[in-house]
Protein backbone atom coordinates (compact mmCIF):
# COMPACT_ATOMS: atom_id res chain seq x y z
CA UNK A 1 0.00 0.00 0.00
CA UNK A 2 1.27 3.43 -0.93
CA UNK A 3 0.34 6.31 1.38
CA UNK A 4 1.11 9.99 0.85
CA UNK A 5 1.02 12.32 3.85
CA UNK A 6 0.76 16.08 3.35
CA UNK A 7 2.89 17.85 5.94
CA UNK A 8 3.28 21.52 6.65
CA UNK A 9 6.41 23.06 8.11
CA UNK A 10 5.49 26.07 10.19
CA UNK A 11 7.16 28.72 12.37
CA UNK A 12 7.49 27.42 15.96
CA UNK A 13 4.04 28.07 17.55
CA UNK A 14 5.76 28.58 20.91
CA UNK A 15 7.27 31.80 19.53
CA UNK A 16 5.05 34.82 18.93
CA UNK A 17 3.88 35.01 15.31
CA UNK A 18 4.57 38.12 13.27
CA UNK A 19 3.30 39.68 10.05
CA UNK A 20 5.71 41.13 7.52
CA UNK A 21 4.93 44.87 7.67
CA UNK A 22 5.23 45.35 3.90
CA UNK A 23 3.33 42.28 2.63
CA UNK A 24 1.12 41.54 5.67
CA UNK A 25 1.98 37.87 5.16
CA UNK A 26 2.98 35.62 8.06
CA UNK A 27 6.76 35.65 8.44
CA UNK A 28 8.18 32.26 7.49
CA UNK A 29 11.83 33.11 7.00
CA UNK A 30 13.16 31.50 10.18
CA UNK A 31 13.54 27.84 11.05
CA UNK A 32 10.38 25.85 10.40
CA UNK A 33 9.22 22.78 12.31
CA UNK A 34 6.80 19.94 11.59
CA UNK A 35 3.26 21.12 12.38
CA UNK A 36 2.08 19.02 15.32
CA UNK A 37 -1.30 18.63 13.56
CA UNK A 38 0.49 16.73 10.80
CA UNK A 39 2.35 14.39 13.13
CA UNK A 40 -1.00 12.57 13.56
CA UNK A 41 -1.24 11.98 9.81
CA UNK A 42 2.32 10.66 9.71
CA UNK A 43 1.68 8.30 12.63
CA UNK A 44 -1.62 7.13 11.14
CA UNK A 45 0.10 6.39 7.81
CA UNK A 46 2.85 4.39 9.53
CA UNK A 47 0.27 2.37 11.49
CA UNK A 48 -1.91 1.67 8.43
CA UNK A 49 1.08 0.49 6.40
CA UNK A 50 2.18 -1.73 9.28
CA UNK A 51 -1.36 -3.17 9.57
CA UNK A 52 -1.46 -3.77 5.80
CA UNK A 53 1.70 -5.84 6.10
CA UNK A 54 3.91 -3.41 4.23
CA UNK A 55 4.00 -0.47 1.90
CA UNK A 56 5.46 2.92 1.54
CA UNK A 57 4.87 6.28 3.24
CA UNK A 58 5.83 9.34 1.21
CA UNK A 59 5.66 12.94 2.40
CA UNK A 60 4.66 15.95 0.34
CA UNK A 61 5.38 19.48 1.56
CA UNK A 62 5.53 23.01 0.24
CA UNK A 63 7.86 25.44 1.99
CA UNK A 64 10.08 28.46 1.27
CA UNK A 65 13.88 28.23 0.84
CA UNK A 66 13.96 24.43 0.50
CA UNK A 67 13.29 24.26 4.23
CA UNK A 68 13.24 20.62 5.30
CA UNK A 69 13.86 20.38 9.06
CA UNK A 70 10.17 19.51 9.62
CA UNK A 71 10.33 16.90 6.87
CA UNK A 72 13.37 15.34 8.55
CA UNK A 73 11.34 14.97 11.75
CA UNK A 74 8.62 13.06 9.86
CA UNK A 75 11.24 10.96 8.05
CA UNK A 76 12.82 10.19 11.44
CA UNK A 77 9.42 8.94 12.64
CA UNK A 78 9.57 6.38 9.84
CA UNK A 79 8.34 7.85 6.55
CA UNK A 80 10.32 6.55 3.57
CA UNK A 81 10.83 9.56 1.33
CA UNK A 82 9.58 13.06 0.54
CA UNK A 83 8.81 15.59 -2.17
CA UNK A 84 9.51 19.20 -1.24
CA UNK A 85 8.12 21.96 -3.44
CA UNK A 86 9.91 25.26 -3.06
CA UNK A 87 9.76 28.26 -5.39
CA UNK A 88 10.10 31.99 -4.80
CA UNK A 89 6.86 32.55 -6.76
CA UNK A 90 4.93 30.63 -4.08
CA UNK A 91 5.13 33.39 -1.43
CA UNK A 92 1.60 34.48 -0.53
CA UNK A 93 -0.08 31.39 -2.00
CA UNK A 94 -3.59 30.85 -0.60
CA UNK A 95 -5.38 27.60 0.23
CA UNK A 96 -6.51 26.89 -3.34
CA UNK A 97 -3.05 27.58 -4.78
CA UNK A 98 -1.48 25.34 -2.11
CA UNK A 99 -3.91 22.57 -3.04
CA UNK A 100 -3.01 22.89 -6.74
CA UNK A 101 0.71 22.57 -5.93
CA UNK A 102 0.35 19.66 -3.48
CA UNK A 103 -2.07 17.87 -5.84
CA UNK A 104 0.45 18.12 -8.68
CA UNK A 105 3.16 16.63 -6.47
CA UNK A 106 0.86 13.88 -5.17
CA UNK A 107 -0.22 13.06 -8.72
CA UNK A 108 3.35 11.96 -9.50
CA UNK A 109 3.13 9.27 -6.83
CA UNK A 110 -0.25 7.62 -7.63
CA UNK A 111 -0.98 6.72 -3.99
CA UNK A 112 -3.77 4.46 -2.67
CA UNK A 113 -4.34 6.78 0.24
CA UNK A 114 -3.65 10.46 0.96
CA UNK A 115 -3.62 11.71 4.55
CA UNK A 116 -3.47 15.28 5.86
CA UNK A 117 -4.16 17.06 9.12
CA UNK A 118 -7.59 18.70 9.46
CA UNK A 119 -6.05 22.17 9.62
CA UNK A 120 -2.62 23.69 10.09
CA UNK A 121 -1.69 25.35 13.37
CA UNK A 122 -0.71 28.63 11.70
CA UNK A 123 -3.16 29.30 8.87
CA UNK A 124 -5.95 26.98 10.11
CA UNK A 125 -8.18 27.36 7.04
CA UNK A 126 -9.12 23.66 7.17
CA UNK A 127 -9.84 23.67 3.45
CA UNK A 128 -6.62 22.50 1.76
CA UNK A 129 -7.20 18.71 2.13
CA UNK A 130 -10.68 18.85 0.61
CA UNK A 131 -9.37 21.11 -2.17
CA UNK A 132 -6.60 18.61 -2.97
CA UNK A 133 -9.28 15.90 -3.31
CA UNK A 134 -11.20 18.29 -5.56
CA UNK A 135 -8.21 18.97 -7.83
CA UNK A 136 -7.45 15.23 -8.09
CA UNK A 137 -11.20 14.38 -8.49
CA UNK A 138 -11.00 11.94 -5.59
CA UNK A 139 -13.52 11.18 -2.83
CA UNK A 140 -12.60 12.36 0.64
CA UNK A 141 -13.37 11.92 4.31
CA UNK A 142 -12.52 15.02 6.32
CA UNK A 143 -12.38 15.24 10.14
CA UNK A 144 -11.59 11.51 10.36
CA UNK A 145 -10.85 9.78 13.61
CA UNK A 146 -10.37 5.98 13.68
CA UNK A 147 -9.34 4.82 10.23
CA UNK A 148 -9.03 1.21 9.10
CA UNK A 149 -8.45 -0.42 5.73
CA UNK A 150 -10.32 -3.54 4.67
CA UNK A 151 -9.11 -4.74 1.25
CA UNK A 152 -9.80 -1.91 -1.18
CA UNK A 153 -12.14 -0.09 1.19
CA UNK A 154 -11.36 2.46 3.87
CA UNK A 155 -13.62 2.73 6.92
CA UNK A 156 -13.53 5.84 9.05
CA UNK A 157 -15.44 7.77 11.67
CA UNK A 158 -16.01 11.35 10.61
CA UNK A 159 -16.51 13.86 13.38
CA UNK A 160 -19.74 15.86 13.14
CA UNK A 161 -21.17 18.69 15.23
CA UNK A 162 -23.31 16.18 17.17
CA UNK A 163 -21.13 13.07 17.27
CA UNK A 164 -19.72 11.13 14.33
CA UNK A 165 -20.68 9.38 11.10
CA UNK A 166 -19.39 5.99 9.97
CA UNK A 167 -18.05 6.36 6.44
CA UNK A 168 -16.92 3.85 3.84
CA UNK A 169 -15.09 4.59 0.64
CA UNK A 170 -13.15 2.70 -2.01
CA UNK A 171 -9.46 3.53 -2.49
CA UNK A 172 -7.95 5.80 -3.64
CA UNK A 173 -9.28 8.37 -1.21
CA UNK A 174 -8.07 11.39 0.78
CA UNK A 175 -8.65 11.63 4.53
CA UNK A 176 -7.96 14.52 6.88
CA UNK A 177 -7.27 13.29 10.40
CA UNK A 178 -8.10 15.05 13.66
CA UNK A 179 -5.51 15.74 16.35
CA UNK A 180 -5.38 13.07 19.05
CA UNK A 181 -6.53 10.27 16.74
CA UNK A 182 -3.28 8.37 17.41
CA UNK A 183 -0.26 8.97 19.63
CA UNK A 184 2.58 10.21 17.39
CA UNK A 185 5.81 8.31 18.09
CA UNK A 186 8.99 10.12 19.09
CA UNK A 187 11.77 9.67 16.55
CA UNK A 188 14.40 7.27 17.88
CA UNK A 189 18.12 8.07 17.64
CA UNK A 190 18.38 5.42 14.93
CA UNK A 191 15.43 7.01 13.12
CA UNK A 192 17.03 10.44 13.27
CA UNK A 193 20.29 9.12 11.84
CA UNK A 194 18.46 7.17 9.10
CA UNK A 195 16.35 10.22 8.18
CA UNK A 196 19.47 12.12 7.12
CA UNK A 197 20.00 9.65 4.28
CA UNK A 198 16.38 9.31 3.13
CA UNK A 199 15.64 10.77 -0.32
CA UNK A 200 13.99 14.21 -0.53
CA UNK A 201 13.12 15.25 -4.07
CA UNK A 202 13.17 19.05 -4.46
CA UNK A 203 10.85 20.44 -7.13
CA UNK A 204 9.95 23.91 -8.33
CA UNK A 205 6.83 25.14 -10.14
CA UNK A 206 8.30 24.51 -13.56
CA UNK A 207 9.04 20.89 -12.70
CA UNK A 208 5.40 20.48 -11.63
CA UNK A 209 4.09 22.19 -14.77
CA UNK A 210 2.31 24.94 -12.80
CA UNK A 211 2.10 28.48 -14.20
CA UNK A 212 3.43 30.92 -11.61
CA UNK A 213 0.49 33.34 -12.07
CA UNK A 214 -1.98 30.70 -10.78
CA UNK A 215 -0.29 30.64 -7.36
CA UNK A 216 1.48 33.12 -5.06
CA UNK A 217 0.08 36.55 -4.31
CA UNK A 218 -1.22 36.96 -7.89
CA UNK A 219 -3.05 33.63 -7.91
CA UNK A 220 -4.56 34.26 -4.47
CA UNK A 221 -6.61 37.17 -5.86
CA UNK A 222 -7.00 38.75 -2.43
CA UNK A 223 -5.23 41.55 -0.64
CA UNK A 224 -4.75 42.36 3.02
CA UNK A 225 -5.74 46.00 3.13
CA UNK A 226 -5.18 46.68 6.83
CA UNK A 227 -4.28 45.11 10.15
CA UNK A 228 -5.67 46.45 13.42
CA UNK A 229 -4.93 45.70 17.06
CA UNK A 230 -7.84 43.95 18.79
CA UNK A 231 -9.28 45.38 21.96
CA UNK A 232 -7.51 43.87 24.96
CA UNK A 233 -9.60 42.24 27.62
CA UNK A 234 -8.69 43.58 31.06
CA UNK A 235 -7.88 41.08 33.77
CA UNK A 236 -9.70 41.58 37.08
CA UNK A 237 -9.20 40.37 40.60
CA UNK A 238 -6.56 37.67 41.00
CA UNK A 239 -6.25 36.01 44.41
CA UNK A 240 -4.14 33.18 45.75
CA UNK A 241 -6.07 30.37 47.39
CA UNK A 242 -5.30 30.26 51.10
CA UNK A 243 -8.06 27.77 51.83
CA UNK A 244 -11.15 29.93 51.43
CA UNK A 245 -11.02 31.08 47.79
CA UNK A 246 -14.18 29.03 47.22
CA UNK A 247 -16.04 31.50 49.44
CA UNK A 248 -14.92 34.42 47.28
CA UNK A 249 -16.15 32.52 44.19
CA UNK A 250 -19.51 31.80 45.84
CA UNK A 251 -19.82 35.48 46.76
CA UNK A 252 -18.90 36.51 43.20
CA UNK A 253 -21.49 34.09 41.77
CA UNK A 254 -24.02 35.68 44.09
CA UNK A 255 -23.13 39.17 42.80
CA UNK A 256 -23.64 37.87 39.26
CA UNK A 257 -26.96 36.38 40.37
CA UNK A 258 -25.89 32.98 38.99
CA UNK A 259 -26.76 31.37 42.33
Amino acid at each position, binding site marked *: MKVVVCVKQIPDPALPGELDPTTNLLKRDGKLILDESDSYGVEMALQLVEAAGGGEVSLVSMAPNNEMSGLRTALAMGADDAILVSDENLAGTDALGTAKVLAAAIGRLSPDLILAGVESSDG*YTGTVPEMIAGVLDLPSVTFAKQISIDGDTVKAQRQTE*AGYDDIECKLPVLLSVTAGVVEPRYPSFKGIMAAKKKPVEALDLQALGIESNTVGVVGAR*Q*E*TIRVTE*AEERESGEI*IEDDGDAHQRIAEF*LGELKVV
Partner: protein
Amino acid sequence: MSLNTIMVFAEGDESGPTTLTLELIRAARGVAANVEAFVLDDGSSMAESLGDHGVSKIHAMGGAEGKLVGAHAAALMADLVVSNLPDAVFFGQTPDGRDTAARLSVRLDQPVITNNVGVTVEDGVLVLEEPVFGGTQNIFTAFRNDGASLALFRPKSFEAESIGGAIAEVSVLEGADPGNSGTAIVTGRVIEERSGPQLDSAAVVVSGGRGLGQPEAYELVDELAGLLNAASGASRAIVDAGWVPYSKQVGQTGKVVKPSLYFACGISGATQHLVGMKGSKVIIAINKDPEAPIFSVADLGIVGDVHKVMPALIETLKAT
Protein backbone atom coordinates in the same frame (compact mmCIF):
# COMPACT_ATOMS: atom_id res chain seq x y z
CA MET B 1 -22.79 50.89 -1.80
CA SER B 2 -23.97 47.34 -1.42
CA LEU B 3 -23.66 44.23 -3.54
CA ASN B 4 -26.49 42.67 -5.54
CA THR B 5 -26.82 39.04 -4.50
CA ILE B 6 -25.20 36.85 -1.87
CA MET B 7 -26.06 33.18 -1.61
CA VAL B 8 -25.85 31.42 1.75
CA PHE B 9 -25.12 27.72 2.28
CA ALA B 10 -27.87 26.87 4.79
CA GLU B 11 -27.56 23.99 7.24
CA GLY B 12 -30.13 22.51 9.57
CA ASP B 13 -32.55 19.64 9.98
CA GLU B 14 -36.32 18.98 10.11
CA SER B 15 -36.58 21.35 13.05
CA GLY B 16 -35.24 24.23 10.95
CA PRO B 17 -32.05 26.08 10.14
CA THR B 18 -29.10 26.25 12.55
CA THR B 19 -28.45 29.50 14.41
CA LEU B 20 -25.23 29.86 12.44
CA THR B 21 -27.25 29.78 9.20
CA LEU B 22 -29.45 32.63 10.44
CA GLU B 23 -26.30 34.55 11.47
CA LEU B 24 -24.93 34.16 7.92
CA ILE B 25 -28.17 35.53 6.48
CA ARG B 26 -27.86 38.55 8.72
CA ALA B 27 -24.25 39.06 7.58
CA ALA B 28 -25.29 38.76 3.94
CA ARG B 29 -28.23 41.14 4.37
CA GLY B 30 -25.88 43.76 5.74
CA VAL B 31 -23.87 43.92 2.50
CA ALA B 32 -26.22 42.79 -0.30
CA ALA B 33 -29.64 43.79 -1.60
CA ASN B 34 -30.77 40.22 -2.27
CA VAL B 35 -30.04 37.09 -0.23
CA GLU B 36 -30.71 33.57 -1.51
CA ALA B 37 -29.97 30.21 0.12
CA PHE B 38 -28.86 26.71 -0.81
CA VAL B 39 -30.71 24.07 1.22
CA LEU B 40 -29.95 20.35 1.44
CA ASP B 41 -33.48 18.96 1.09
CA ASP B 42 -36.64 19.89 -0.82
CA GLY B 43 -36.55 23.32 0.83
CA SER B 44 -40.05 23.19 2.33
CA SER B 45 -38.99 22.87 5.97
CA MET B 46 -36.93 26.08 5.87
CA ALA B 47 -38.90 28.28 3.44
CA GLU B 48 -40.74 30.03 6.23
CA SER B 49 -37.89 30.60 8.70
CA LEU B 50 -35.33 31.58 6.07
CA GLY B 51 -37.88 33.90 4.46
CA ASP B 52 -38.62 35.45 7.82
CA HIS B 53 -34.91 36.27 8.20
CA GLY B 54 -34.72 37.85 4.76
CA VAL B 55 -34.01 35.11 2.19
CA SER B 56 -35.91 35.71 -1.06
CA LYS B 57 -35.25 32.41 -2.77
CA ILE B 58 -34.22 28.87 -1.80
CA HIS B 59 -32.27 26.62 -4.15
CA ALA B 60 -33.21 23.12 -3.01
CA MET B 61 -30.47 20.56 -3.59
CA GLY B 62 -32.28 17.42 -2.39
CA GLY B 63 -30.83 15.11 0.26
CA ALA B 64 -27.27 13.90 -0.13
CA GLU B 65 -28.79 10.38 0.09
CA GLY B 66 -26.17 8.72 2.22
CA LYS B 67 -23.27 10.50 0.57
CA LEU B 68 -21.07 13.12 2.17
CA VAL B 69 -22.46 16.61 1.68
CA GLY B 70 -19.42 18.50 0.33
CA ALA B 71 -18.89 16.92 -3.08
CA HIS B 72 -22.64 16.53 -3.71
CA ALA B 73 -23.59 20.10 -2.81
CA ALA B 74 -20.63 21.72 -4.57
CA ALA B 75 -21.48 19.99 -7.87
CA LEU B 76 -25.04 21.35 -7.77
CA MET B 77 -24.03 24.80 -6.54
CA ALA B 78 -21.29 25.29 -9.14
CA ASP B 79 -23.68 25.25 -12.10
CA LEU B 80 -26.05 27.73 -10.48
CA VAL B 81 -23.27 30.09 -9.41
CA VAL B 82 -21.90 30.08 -12.97
CA SER B 83 -25.31 30.88 -14.47
CA ASN B 84 -26.68 33.31 -11.84
CA LEU B 85 -23.40 35.05 -10.94
CA PRO B 86 -23.97 36.02 -7.29
CA ASP B 87 -21.35 38.36 -5.83
CA ALA B 88 -20.49 35.87 -3.10
CA VAL B 89 -21.41 32.62 -1.38
CA PHE B 90 -21.26 32.55 2.44
CA PHE B 91 -20.67 29.40 4.49
CA GLY B 92 -20.61 28.63 8.21
CA GLN B 93 -17.35 27.24 9.58
CA THR B 94 -18.72 23.70 10.11
CA PRO B 95 -17.34 20.38 8.80
CA ASP B 96 -19.85 20.36 5.90
CA GLY B 97 -19.49 24.11 5.32
CA ARG B 98 -15.73 23.80 4.98
CA ASP B 99 -15.98 20.74 2.70
CA THR B 100 -18.53 22.37 0.43
CA ALA B 101 -16.68 25.68 0.19
CA ALA B 102 -13.43 23.85 -0.60
CA ARG B 103 -14.99 21.70 -3.33
CA LEU B 104 -16.78 24.72 -4.81
CA SER B 105 -13.54 26.71 -4.76
CA VAL B 106 -11.89 24.08 -6.96
CA ARG B 107 -14.87 23.76 -9.32
CA LEU B 108 -15.12 27.53 -9.85
CA ASP B 109 -11.39 28.26 -9.48
CA GLN B 110 -12.25 30.97 -6.97
CA PRO B 111 -10.46 31.85 -3.70
CA VAL B 112 -11.97 31.16 -0.28
CA ILE B 113 -11.32 33.33 2.76
CA THR B 114 -11.82 31.50 6.07
CA ASN B 115 -12.22 32.23 9.81
CA ASN B 116 -14.11 35.48 9.27
CA VAL B 117 -15.95 37.38 12.00
CA GLY B 118 -16.94 40.50 10.07
CA VAL B 119 -17.79 41.71 6.57
CA THR B 120 -18.13 45.06 4.84
CA VAL B 121 -18.19 46.40 1.29
CA GLU B 122 -15.47 48.92 0.51
CA ASP B 123 -15.06 50.46 -2.96
CA GLY B 124 -17.54 47.94 -4.29
CA VAL B 125 -15.66 44.85 -3.12
CA LEU B 126 -16.18 42.50 -0.23
CA VAL B 127 -13.78 43.00 2.70
CA LEU B 128 -13.54 40.31 5.36
CA GLU B 129 -12.27 40.55 8.92
CA GLU B 130 -10.31 37.68 10.43
CA PRO B 131 -8.79 37.57 13.93
CA VAL B 132 -5.20 36.26 14.05
CA PHE B 133 -2.60 35.43 16.72
CA GLY B 134 -5.23 34.35 19.23
CA GLY B 135 -7.43 37.34 18.55
CA THR B 136 -4.81 39.98 19.35
CA GLN B 137 -4.89 41.41 15.82
CA ASN B 138 -7.51 41.60 13.08
CA ILE B 139 -6.68 41.24 9.41
CA PHE B 140 -8.93 42.85 6.79
CA THR B 141 -8.76 41.17 3.40
CA ALA B 142 -10.34 42.38 0.16
CA PHE B 143 -11.17 40.04 -2.70
CA ARG B 144 -9.42 40.91 -5.97
CA ASN B 145 -11.06 38.16 -8.06
CA ASP B 146 -13.53 38.21 -10.94
CA GLY B 147 -16.58 36.09 -10.18
CA ALA B 148 -18.19 34.81 -7.00
CA SER B 149 -16.17 35.26 -3.80
CA LEU B 150 -16.35 32.46 -1.25
CA ALA B 151 -16.22 33.17 2.47
CA LEU B 152 -16.44 31.07 5.64
CA PHE B 153 -17.64 32.64 8.90
CA ARG B 154 -17.05 31.65 12.50
CA PRO B 155 -20.15 31.06 14.68
CA LYS B 156 -21.52 33.88 16.86
CA SER B 157 -20.00 36.62 14.72
CA PHE B 158 -23.41 38.14 13.91
CA GLU B 159 -26.76 38.37 15.68
CA ALA B 160 -29.54 36.53 13.84
CA GLU B 161 -32.47 38.85 13.19
CA SER B 162 -36.03 38.04 12.15
CA ILE B 163 -37.38 40.77 9.85
CA GLY B 164 -40.81 39.32 9.10
CA GLY B 165 -39.99 38.52 5.47
CA ALA B 166 -42.34 36.54 3.22
CA ILE B 167 -41.96 32.78 2.75
CA ALA B 168 -39.00 32.17 0.44
CA GLU B 169 -39.69 30.98 -3.09
CA VAL B 170 -38.32 27.44 -3.63
CA SER B 171 -36.61 26.38 -6.82
CA VAL B 172 -35.27 22.86 -7.24
CA LEU B 173 -31.70 22.33 -8.46
CA GLU B 174 -31.13 19.24 -10.55
CA GLY B 175 -28.72 17.63 -12.88
CA ALA B 176 -25.20 17.84 -11.52
CA ASP B 177 -23.40 14.65 -10.58
CA PRO B 178 -20.35 14.77 -8.28
CA GLY B 179 -18.94 11.72 -10.13
CA ASN B 180 -15.98 9.93 -8.54
CA SER B 181 -15.50 12.69 -5.95
CA GLY B 182 -18.85 11.83 -4.34
CA THR B 183 -18.37 8.11 -3.73
CA ALA B 184 -17.76 8.12 0.05
CA ILE B 185 -20.91 6.79 1.71
CA VAL B 186 -22.35 7.26 5.18
CA THR B 187 -23.13 3.85 6.72
CA GLY B 188 -24.06 4.99 10.21
CA ARG B 189 -24.72 8.08 12.26
CA VAL B 190 -23.88 8.35 15.95
CA ILE B 191 -25.29 11.17 18.05
CA GLU B 192 -23.30 11.50 21.27
CA GLU B 193 -25.54 11.72 24.27
CA ARG B 194 -26.10 15.20 25.59
CA SER B 195 -28.23 16.30 28.48
CA GLY B 196 -28.80 19.66 30.13
CA PRO B 197 -28.02 23.02 28.53
CA GLN B 198 -26.29 22.98 25.11
CA LEU B 199 -22.70 24.16 25.07
CA ASP B 200 -23.10 26.78 22.34
CA SER B 201 -26.23 28.39 23.76
CA ALA B 202 -25.91 27.98 27.56
CA ALA B 203 -25.85 31.11 29.75
CA VAL B 204 -23.17 29.52 31.92
CA VAL B 205 -20.35 27.21 30.81
CA VAL B 206 -18.01 25.29 33.12
CA SER B 207 -14.94 23.88 31.35
CA GLY B 208 -12.11 21.63 32.44
CA GLY B 209 -8.57 21.22 31.17
CA ARG B 210 -5.34 19.36 31.69
CA GLY B 211 -4.98 20.80 35.20
CA LEU B 212 -7.66 18.35 36.34
CA GLY B 213 -4.86 15.78 36.24
CA GLN B 214 -6.90 12.71 35.38
CA PRO B 215 -10.09 11.84 33.45
CA GLU B 216 -12.06 10.98 36.63
CA ALA B 217 -11.61 14.54 37.90
CA TYR B 218 -13.86 15.77 35.08
CA GLU B 219 -16.73 14.69 37.37
CA LEU B 220 -15.99 17.87 39.35
CA VAL B 221 -16.71 19.90 36.21
CA ASP B 222 -19.96 18.04 35.60
CA GLU B 223 -21.03 18.46 39.21
CA LEU B 224 -20.28 22.19 39.30
CA ALA B 225 -22.04 22.61 35.93
CA GLY B 226 -25.10 20.84 37.35
CA LEU B 227 -25.23 23.20 40.34
CA LEU B 228 -24.93 26.29 38.11
CA ASN B 229 -27.37 24.96 35.47
CA ALA B 230 -24.43 25.21 33.08
CA ALA B 231 -23.17 23.30 30.06
CA SER B 232 -19.86 21.51 30.53
CA GLY B 233 -16.99 22.13 28.14
CA ALA B 234 -13.35 21.20 27.72
CA SER B 235 -10.01 22.36 26.39
CA ARG B 236 -8.52 20.68 23.32
CA ALA B 237 -5.84 19.02 25.46
CA ILE B 238 -8.27 16.73 27.28
CA VAL B 239 -10.37 16.09 24.15
CA ASP B 240 -7.22 15.00 22.30
CA ALA B 241 -6.33 12.84 25.29
CA GLY B 242 -9.72 11.12 24.97
CA TRP B 243 -11.15 12.14 28.38
CA VAL B 244 -14.29 13.73 26.92
CA PRO B 245 -15.84 13.76 23.41
CA TYR B 246 -15.06 16.39 20.78
CA SER B 247 -18.59 17.79 21.10
CA LYS B 248 -17.43 19.38 24.39
CA GLN B 249 -14.39 21.13 22.91
CA VAL B 250 -14.27 24.92 23.24
CA GLY B 251 -11.77 26.75 21.06
CA GLN B 252 -10.54 27.47 17.60
CA THR B 253 -11.24 23.95 16.36
CA GLY B 254 -14.18 23.35 18.69
CA LYS B 255 -17.16 25.46 19.63
CA VAL B 256 -17.20 29.21 20.02
CA VAL B 257 -19.05 30.16 23.19
CA LYS B 258 -20.13 33.56 24.48
CA PRO B 259 -21.99 32.83 27.72
CA SER B 260 -22.74 35.33 30.50
CA LEU B 261 -20.30 33.37 32.66
CA TYR B 262 -17.41 31.14 31.62
CA PHE B 263 -15.80 29.13 34.40
CA ALA B 264 -12.39 27.69 33.44
CA CYS B 265 -11.06 24.95 35.73
CA GLY B 266 -7.48 23.79 35.27
CA ILE B 267 -7.23 25.45 31.87
CA SER B 268 -4.01 27.33 31.13
CA GLY B 269 -5.54 29.40 28.33
CA ALA B 270 -3.66 28.47 25.17
CA THR B 271 -4.44 30.65 22.16
CA GLN B 272 -6.44 27.77 20.71
CA HIS B 273 -8.77 27.92 23.72
CA LEU B 274 -8.93 31.71 24.25
CA VAL B 275 -10.21 32.24 20.71
CA GLY B 276 -13.27 30.15 21.53
CA MET B 277 -14.26 31.80 24.83
CA LYS B 278 -12.81 35.28 25.29
CA GLY B 279 -16.06 36.82 24.08
CA SER B 280 -17.72 35.58 27.31
CA LYS B 281 -19.20 38.35 29.46
CA VAL B 282 -17.58 37.29 32.73
CA ILE B 283 -14.72 34.80 33.15
CA ILE B 284 -13.72 32.97 36.33
CA ALA B 285 -10.55 30.87 36.27
CA ILE B 286 -8.90 28.47 38.67
CA ASN B 287 -5.34 27.42 37.86
CA LYS B 288 -2.32 26.62 39.96
CA ASP B 289 0.13 28.42 37.67
CA PRO B 290 0.02 32.16 38.41
CA GLU B 291 1.61 32.82 34.98
CA ALA B 292 -1.18 30.98 33.08
CA PRO B 293 -2.50 33.15 30.20
CA ILE B 294 -6.09 32.45 31.28
CA PHE B 295 -5.57 34.96 34.13
CA SER B 296 -5.00 37.77 31.64
CA VAL B 297 -8.66 37.52 30.57
CA ALA B 298 -10.21 36.48 33.90
CA ASP B 299 -12.50 38.79 35.88
CA LEU B 300 -11.92 36.61 38.93
CA GLY B 301 -8.80 34.46 38.95
CA ILE B 302 -7.96 31.95 41.67
CA VAL B 303 -4.36 30.80 41.84
CA GLY B 304 -4.89 27.43 43.45
CA ASP B 305 -5.43 23.71 43.11
CA VAL B 306 -8.67 22.74 41.35
CA HIS B 307 -8.77 19.59 43.50
CA LYS B 308 -9.10 21.73 46.62
CA VAL B 309 -11.06 24.75 45.38
CA MET B 310 -13.68 22.93 43.30
CA PRO B 311 -14.82 20.40 45.97
CA ALA B 312 -14.99 23.20 48.55
CA LEU B 313 -17.01 25.38 46.17
CA ILE B 314 -19.35 22.49 45.35
CA GLU B 315 -19.97 21.90 49.10
CA THR B 316 -20.60 25.63 49.65
CA LEU B 317 -23.06 25.85 46.76
CA LYS B 318 -24.89 22.72 47.92
CA ALA B 319 -25.26 24.20 51.39
CA THR B 320 -26.88 27.41 50.14
